[in-house]
């Protein structure tokens, strides 16, 4: 797969076409030499005329048909490769998100500074992924907005430390670690699932484009 085709899948490979034309011309003159006159005897009972000009026309037509088909194939392969790259970037983020959020909700708790840096890194990774997704041919603006909003919810849940007046004990600070209650972890899981659903919809849309 050439880089030119990836950049512009509709570009026509002029060099290949010229080589083909040259090869077709060689074949034509070769046939002229071999045919000698205009008659080629196929068998004792059947003999018919084969006009070398027709052979040349047929060869050129076949060559052009094959070339066009190959170009179309290359373009389709290029489109598929691009779609796969976009989907892979979303899958990579999905894996990172799942792994990191799971790591933050362990029962022993995680240092507050670790929570903050993990969320920051996830946010940066998400923005990089969304820049790529914006380059895909299908329109994902609405889903991207939903994804950003959902990530905000997740971030607020994971980085929330209660006020003195908050007696819910959803988040407890112990020796510098944030410990979430089971009910709170359920809320986090619910918002994470919602985030993954939106991500899945974007993947589907790109795959169908």
């Amino acid at each position, binding site marked *: 797969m050439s880089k030119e085709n990836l950049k512009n899948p509709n570009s026509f490979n002029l060099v290949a076409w010229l080589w083909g034309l040259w090869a077709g011309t060689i074949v034509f003159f070769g046939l002229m030499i071999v045919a000698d006159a205009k008659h080629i005897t196929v068998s004792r009972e059947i003999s018919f005329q084969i006009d070398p000009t027709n052979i040349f026309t047929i060869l050129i037509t076949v060559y052009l048909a094959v070339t066009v088909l190959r170009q179309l194939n290359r373009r389709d392969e290029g489109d598929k490769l691009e779609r796969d790259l976009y989907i892979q970037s979303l899958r990579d983020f999905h894996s990172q998100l799942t792994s990191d959020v799971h790591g933050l909700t362990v029962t022993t708790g995680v240092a*507050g*500074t670790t*929570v*903050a*840096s*993990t969320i920051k890194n996830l946010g940066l990774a998400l923005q990089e992924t969304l820049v790529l997704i914006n380059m895909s041919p299908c329109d994902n603006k609405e889903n991207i907005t939903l994804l950003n909003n959902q990530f905000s919810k997740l971030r607020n849940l994971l*980085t*929330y*430390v209660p006020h003195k007046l908050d007696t819910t004990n959803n988040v407890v*600070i112990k020796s510098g670690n944030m410990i979430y209650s089971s009910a709170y972890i359920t809320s986090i899981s619910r918002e994470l699932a919602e985030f993954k659903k939106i991500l899945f919809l974007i993947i589907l849309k790109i795959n169908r484009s």
Partner: protein
Amino acid sequence: MIYLSVAKDFTKTPGFRYETQSPGISGELFRMSKLLVSYEQAVKNNDKLEVNLDGTAGYLTSFLEEAFGGLQRYYRENGDNRNILESITIVSDDEPHWKSDIERYVQRELEKSK
């Protein structure tokens, strides 16, 4: 313009909301030792304060709420209904969402004084 950078002037690893939760790196300490001082200096000089949030390892929501929401609360509880963001500019290129989040914390406190 008076400049205050959390990473350079306070800590690269901001902690929790209160000093009791993360001594030396809390939102409470940042507000009392850095933000309030710089803000009042800016107001006294009829100047603006630019607070740069970039360069840290990341923030917990409560650190920033305690810093900025807490500063607005400080004035509100003293009978002063000023909007602190009229003299504060927030710079946050790493995580642009903090700017609107801080505006929301301050606005919430302003609405309580109405």
